[in-house]
């Protein structure tokens, strides 16, 4: 009888301890996009979390299917706080409208914990294009419908959808040329084979500064500190235009609330540290305005709705 009680006590203690003492073993942060800024920022955050939580936080790369594989894995993972996802705009806002049979629900299957990076896209044109402002570009596009080519990193990417929104709001018709990633698209833009593209700020900044391409506007509502003279698309006549690329930490839906709040607190602390700010700034990110899990959830929902509309308008379907 005594042994039984001891055993029961031990079991209860373990269960109790694992809930209270989280984390007691390494945490996995699943990253869907190896090698790019998402991967890099995952490692930055993982390092900070590791210092704060006292347990290893390991970045696990799970590429594939535009992020679906990683997102699905975390949606279906045990909600014990040991599996996290660096979810992105693609996985949670665009894919739900772009891909018909998504094996997860972007809102219901996840707890959205913290937005980590938010970068604007910037409208860049080839230097030889006779358009020095958004207004001139729109006029040019209207005078030559279907003659301007805009490139993007892939069908359904923010670069593509930004272009589609631009077309819709300005009433112009331009041809979309998809690429495997944004780098070859930038190359073709530099050489004039493409006329314009919406690329993310961080990667195009050097070329803009060096004068190899001309930047016309940013896609966010607010001007960016990196290029303060650059107007926003909203200011340039496309009222209400506001698009960013973003990613942030998420966990399976039923993750215990104490774990969620602890994670949120530590991540926000990390985001405020100067070295983290430096590193993320290098990607063109400024500390996001969204600082709580509830705000993040609301943000994801609004993004999802926005892109549902956009994808439909653009006709982009992997069919």
């Amino acid at each position, binding site marked *: 009888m005594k042994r039984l009680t001891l055993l029961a006590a031990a079991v209860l203690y373990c269960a109790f301890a694992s809930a209270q003492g989280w984390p007691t073993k390494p945490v996995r942060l699943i990253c869907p996009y*190896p*090698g*790019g*800024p998402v*991967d*890099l920022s995952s*490692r*930055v955050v*993982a*390092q900070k979390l590791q210092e704060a939580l006292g347990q290893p936080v390991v970045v*696990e*790369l*799970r*590429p*594939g*299917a*535009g992020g*679906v*594989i990683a997102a*699905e894995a975390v949606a279906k993972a045990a909600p014990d706080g040991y599996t996290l996802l660096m979810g992105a705009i693609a996985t949670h806002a665009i894919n739900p409208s772009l891909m018909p049979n998504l*094996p997860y629900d972007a809102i219901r299957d996840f707890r959205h914990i913290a937005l980590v990076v938010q970068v604007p896209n910037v409208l860049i044109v080839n230097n030889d294009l006779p358009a020095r402002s958004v207004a001139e570009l729109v006029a040019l596009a209207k005078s030559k419908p279907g003659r301007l*080519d805009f490139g993007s990193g*892939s*069908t*359904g990417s923010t670069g593509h959808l930004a272009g589609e929104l631009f077309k819709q709001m300005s009433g112009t018709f331009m*041809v979309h*040329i*998809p*690429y*495997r*990633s944004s*780098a*070859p698209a*930038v*190359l*073709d833009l*530099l*050489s004039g*084979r493409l006329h314009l593209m919406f690329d993310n700020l*961080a*990667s195009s*900044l*050097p*070329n803009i*500064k*060096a004068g*190899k391409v001309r930047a016309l506007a940013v896609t966010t509502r607010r001007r960016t500190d990196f290029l303060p003279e650059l107007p926003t698309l909203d200011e340039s006549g496309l009222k209400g235009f506001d698009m960013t690329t973003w990613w942030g930490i998420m966990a399976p839906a039923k993750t215990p609330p104490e774990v969620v709040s602890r994670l949120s607190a530590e991540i926000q602390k990390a985001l405020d540290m100067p070295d983290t700010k*430096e*590193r993320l700034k*290098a*990607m063109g990110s400024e500390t996001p305005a969204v600082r709580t899990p509830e705000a993040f959830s609301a943000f994801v929902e609004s993004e999802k709705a926005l892109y549902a509309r956009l994808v439909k308008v653009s006709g*982009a*379907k*992997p*069919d």
Partner: protein
Amino acid sequence: MDMTLFSNLALGFGVALTPINLMYCLVGVILGTLIGVLPGIGPVATIAMLLPVTFSLSPITALIMLAGIYYGAQYGGSTSAILVNLPGESSSVVTCLDGYQMARQGRAGVALATAAIGSFFAGCVATLIVAMFAPPLAEIALKFGPSEYFSLMVLGLVAAVVLAHGSVIKAVAMVILGLLLGLVGTDVNSGVLRFAFGISELADGIGFVTVAMGLFGTAEIITNLEMKDEREVFTNKVTNMFPTKEDWKRMWKPILRGTFLGSALGILPGGGALLASFGAYTLEKKVSKYGHEFGKGAIEGVAAPEAANNAGAQTSFIPLLTLGIPSNAVMALMIGAMMIQGIAPGPQVMTEKPQLFWGMIASMWVGNLMLVILNLPMIGMWIKLLTVPYRILFPSILVFMAIGVYSLSNNPFDVLLMMLFGLLGYIFVKLECEPAPLLLGFILGPLMEENLRRAMLLSRGDPIVFFTKPISAGFLIASILLLVILLLPNIRKKREEAFVEE
């Protein structure tokens, strides 16, 4: 000699030769070699993992180490290609063809030495080219658009047929099979998911490493196990470790040709470097007087592609350092590393941060030197490895391959695929169909189609554009010529055969 070049190089060496940079360069190349030897694990995964380590280092030190990993992996990849017929990187596939045969003839040491020497020479020359001609070469890279890439790849495909030493028809069919397998996945131009049958893991296509491990590594193991006696262990036949005078005489011209071809192709961001080793092999086979020995252990078949892929690895830094455009996944990571360090990669790096630019170039040379010094003595060790009985060797190879492939996306599906390709590879061996042309088609297929369709999109459906653009036209004409050269002897032979039978 240009004085500014001299002073720049002096500046560069001043940076590269500091103790801390030397140390991290060494760490990088050793790590790179290790990863290159281990199948499956590639520089991309490693660099990504090591990025946090670089946070605490100065930018130039971090980049030196990461670059070392990259070209170190090229050296390591040839080692496993020669010893066990396992290509670690796409660029090592071609080395398997003759390198492994040389190993079977007891000349593994010579093959390894040739690879190291060829790579070193190519590395030095290519580094010089980067130093002297980076900006003008970058301009050339800009001239290559979809039409040019397509035509280049057509040339590459025709050359692929040259790779085979058996039946030409079967080789062409294998190339086409490779092309088709490469099309599995999401179509860039339309977003449609092709040939995936609902399996999400196939949405990005079949991985090169998975196919190579399966077709070469796994199939090789199965084939070897099938032999009645234990496969002829190379032990007794290991001759000298070093190349003979005859070998030296035969290897220097292929190394030269490989270096220049590789340097040229490496500049092209759209997949040029992949073609480098294949192209060098093909060129050598047609040009060398020992062409008939290719596929059976010709030393040129190791020297040329090894020089080419190392030269390509060096020159693929050019688009990165001058235009800020990555030529491949590793370069994209380097961009990330640079950005995290606060350096914006792009045209102004050369002028605004000369220590970084020239320091990197100088350390490339230093790294190559370290690699050759490291690798040559290790040849003895590698040869000892070959004397291990196969029944111990093959489970080890299988373990490393499985771990490597699994680590690609932490997904058992990849291991399953590797197994299936292993079975397929076994069947290919039995039916005398060669896997190397398939692999080349596999790499080129999706790129070819993508560029073809994109060129057509940009030209609004006008196919003449391939012939009106000079570079593109040049490649296409070369392809037609090459095709004619290839088929002529065949036609003549068929006529002779027909004659004889009659």
